[in-house]
Every structure is written in C-alpha cells, then in structure tokens.
C-alpha cells in the first residue's frame, strides 16, 4: 500500500508500480496461453462434423418428437426400481457414514494417529470413484441387476456423507459437550446429549441432499446393466428408437424435479 507525497497531499494507491506491472504481465500471459490453446484445439477438430451438427440435431429432434406416449406403460417398473436404488443406497450409505464420520472427526476420533487416517482413506477412496465405475466393478462381482446398483450408490455415497458429517461434528460448540461431561455422563451419554442434537440438522440436510443426487445418478446406472430406467434408455438408444428415448428423458426429468421438490421441502422444514 504505497502512499505518495505530492503537494502536501498523501496520495494513496492500492498497489505499488512494481505490483501493477507484475499483474499486467500476468494478464498478458493468461491471454497468450488462451489464444495458443484455442489454436491447438481448432487444429485437432474435424470442423466438417461441427458445421454439420445443427442439421443432425434437427434430424434427431424430428425423429424423437412426438414421444411415444404409450411406451409409458413399460416405464413404471424401471422408474420405481430407480427410486428404490437411490433410496436404499442412501440409507445404507448413511448407516456406514455415521461411524466413519465419528472416527474421522478430530474431536471424536479415538485415535488421531491410527484410526483417523483410515477413516479419511475410506472417505477419499469411496468418494473419488464414480458410481458408474463402482457399478461396473460390482456387476462383475455380484452380477447385473438392481442389487449391484444399490451397492454402487451406497459405496459412492459413504465418502460424501461422511465427509460432510465429520465437518459438521468438528464445528460443534465445544462448551455444550463440556457441560454434559461435567455432569459425570459417560462417553456414550456425552455423544447422545452433547453431540448428536448439535449435528442432527446437518445430518438430515445431508441425507436428503444425497438422496436427491442419488436419484439422478441411479438413472444412468442402467446403462452398464445395474438396473433401473437406464436399462430402458440404453436399450432404446441401441435400437435407435428415438421417440422412446425422448419419453424416457421426460420421465427422468419429472422424477428429478419431484425429488428436488421433496428435498427442498424437507430441508426447509429442518432449518
């Protein structure tokens, strides 16, 4: 923060001249890199397909409309499966995530040296692999079907839920815990009275949030054979039955909208 003395007045500038120059060169460098990258991408693009895109898109649109409405009779069961995959997966994930979160939170972990890193490893490893990849693996292990989907969703969600939950546990008000400890309460009583009431709103929020995400994720699990409406989607795509595809997309859209509405209502009720 330089201040220049001039004519008895103190002139204030945000940056010194040197700092301004450095920033100016930074911007210049950024623009140069952008232009260079643009060129690279342009060279490796087959522009013929890009120019052709509007025509193809229009072609698919005319084939896909109107949706094949009577196909809906065959979609009831798959969308129900999809909802079940999401819901069961979320419930299983929450059951696993709660202990992991308590083991991972700095203020509740029994051992910061050994157990906490293991819990963090569980969180990172389950979070970093997409549920589609989990589903592929699980289909190889337990065979195709809804069950593989449920487990894939559950595993993928453990890390997500546990991470958010352990952050909530670390942010609790410590004096409430102290007060409960001071009454002579046991370790479990301190948890039930000092910690759980404080993280309950966060827990409920995380649960509906993850459920909402899982409904969206479980719609694509069928693409790899893990049950649900994705199965119908991939089948329709394979035979180029565009009117069916468009109807499936509409059904997915409606399901996601309903789930978002429900989770917004639940979160509103808690907070």
């Amino acid at each position: 923060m330089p201040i220049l003395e001039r004519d008895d007045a103190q002139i204030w500038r945000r940056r010194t001249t040197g700092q301004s120059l450095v920033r100016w060169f930074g911007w210049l460098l950024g623009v140069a890199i952008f232009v260079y990258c643009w060129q690279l991408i342009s060279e490796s693009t087959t522009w013929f397909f890009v120019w052709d895109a509007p025509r193809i898109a229009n072609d698919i649109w005319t084939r896909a409309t109107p949706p094949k409405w009577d196909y809906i009779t065959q979609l009831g069961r798959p969308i129900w499966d999809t909802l079940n995959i999401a819901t069961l997966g979320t419930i299983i994930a929450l059951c696993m995530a709660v202990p992991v979160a308590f083991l991972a939170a700095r203020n509740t972990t029994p051992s910061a040296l050994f157990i906490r890193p293991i819990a963090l490893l569980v969180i990172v490893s389950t979070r970093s692999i997409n549920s589609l990849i989990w589903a592929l693996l699980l289909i190889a292990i337990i065979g195709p079907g809804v069950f593989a989907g449920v487990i894939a969703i559950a595993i993928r969600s453990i890390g997500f839920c546990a991470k958010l939950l352990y952050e909530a546990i670390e942010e609790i008000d410590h004096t409430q815990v102290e007060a409960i400890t001071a009454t002579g309460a046991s370790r479990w009583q301190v948890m039930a009275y000092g910690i759980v009431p404080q993280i309950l709103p966060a827990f409920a929020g995380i649960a509906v949030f993850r459920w909402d995400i899982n409904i969206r994720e479980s719609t694509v699990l069928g693409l790899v054979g893990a049950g649900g409406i994705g199965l119908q989607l991939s089948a329709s795509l394979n035979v180029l039955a565009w009117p069916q595809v468009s109807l499936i997309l509409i059904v997915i859209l409606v399901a996601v909208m309903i789930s978002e509405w429900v989770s917004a209502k639940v979160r509103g009720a808690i907070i």
Partner: protein
Amino acid sequence: MLRLQKLTKTYKTGDQALKAIDLEVPKGQVLALIGPSGAGKSTMIRCVNRLVEPTSGGVLLDDVDLTKLGSGALRKARREMGMIFQEYALVERLTVMENVLSGRLGYVGFWRSFLRRYPQSDVDEAFRLLDRVGLLHMADKRADELSGGQRQRVGICRALIQNPKLLLVDEPTASLDPKTSRQIMRLITELCQERGLAAIINIHDVALAQMFVPRVVGLRFGEIVYDGLPTGLTPEKLTEIYGEEDWEATIEKVDEDDDVEAAE
C-alpha cells in the same frame, strides 16, 4: 471440604496457567475468584473437575484425590460437582426439561437417558427446581428460545439437580446485563445457602463479587495474591491483582449500588 494442594497446570505451549495453588474451601462457603483475563481462573475451576488435566498437585474433595481417579471413579466424583458456565452451555436443540434432566446423566444408565425415561424422583426434582427459579412454565420450550437470564437459570437447575456438594461457576454473569447479573448472583448465593453448598465463582466484576460473597480470592499470573474479606480489597490490593488503574470509582460504586439496591 475442597483442598487444592500445589495445583499446577502448564499448557503444551509452555504457558504456566497455575503455579502451585494452595487453597482450602470449607463446607458451605461461597468464594469469588477474581483476576484479570488469562490469570488462570477458568483453568483453576476446570482443573477441579478435570475438564482440564492438571499437570501436578492434588485436588482433594472430602479427602479423595480427584487427580488420581480412573475414568469411572472420575465420573462418580463429577456428579458431586455442579458446573455453571459463562455462555450457559445448554444443549440448544433440547428442551428446558431435557437440559435440566441432563444433570442426572451421571446417575442413570445410557438407555434410560437415551429414551428419556428418567426416574420419577428426578422428574419431580426437576419440576421443583424449575419452579424455584421461576421457569416452570418454560419447561417445554427449546433452550434456544430463552433469554440469557432464563438460560442461566436453566444452567443453575442442571447443576443443582446433580445434588452436588460443590458448585463450580465460570463467569456466570459475563454475558448478562447488569440487572440480570445481580439476579443471577443473588440466586446462586441464595441457593448455596439453602442447600449448604460450597461454591467457587469466577467473576471479573469486582463490585458484583463484593456485593454477594463473604470471601474473595485474587489470582494473578496463576498465583494467589489476595485471599480475604471483600472489604479488604483496597485500591492497593486491586492494583496488585489487576495492575495500575484508578480504583476509587470501582470501590465507591459498590456503595452506590447498594443504595440503589436498597431503594428498589
């Protein structure tokens, strides 16, 4: 009844919060612990019920050395010591009644407390205490709906339902307005008298301490520099505890306050 012997606490950072404190609190005596911020007041009362582990020295409650107890025995000993906190430390999302009953956690098993099936005698006592502090009609309210003074009353009930011998009180009035502060201090000292409880009250409002307690202990840099009657707190003594300042106003204010109090 409570005896601190060469109680020392050195934090990991190397700060010596308490330097070999010797203090004896007889049964039924209420004493105020005054001193500047960072003098070790909070550390001292937390060392008594071992919310903070003392580094060395002894804490004898009825000739039992609390510093040597295992975790089970420590929990039993903590039931004998009620604690009241500066920011009330109520469990915000539980009801007033649940907060009061949580004072019985050391006496009931996990499942009874988890399912809120407290013995009828505990429930009766909770209602009696809430009535005593004038909050019976609030029993079903959530703790975060209460005002500061009301919350501190609930905190007092929670400490008393433990049926303690000793109250550890950490800055009970620091977040309250002057009028509520006095009401809370009066309530605490009255209840101690009714039940013959000893109490250590951390407080940084010297005038308030002088008004309500028969014995004042001054702490500075983890050492006791004053122990005596509240009337013995001369400007020289206050300078020794807190450092140089014009103390006449503080001490005079006590008398004025008493007049106001009497006029009310």
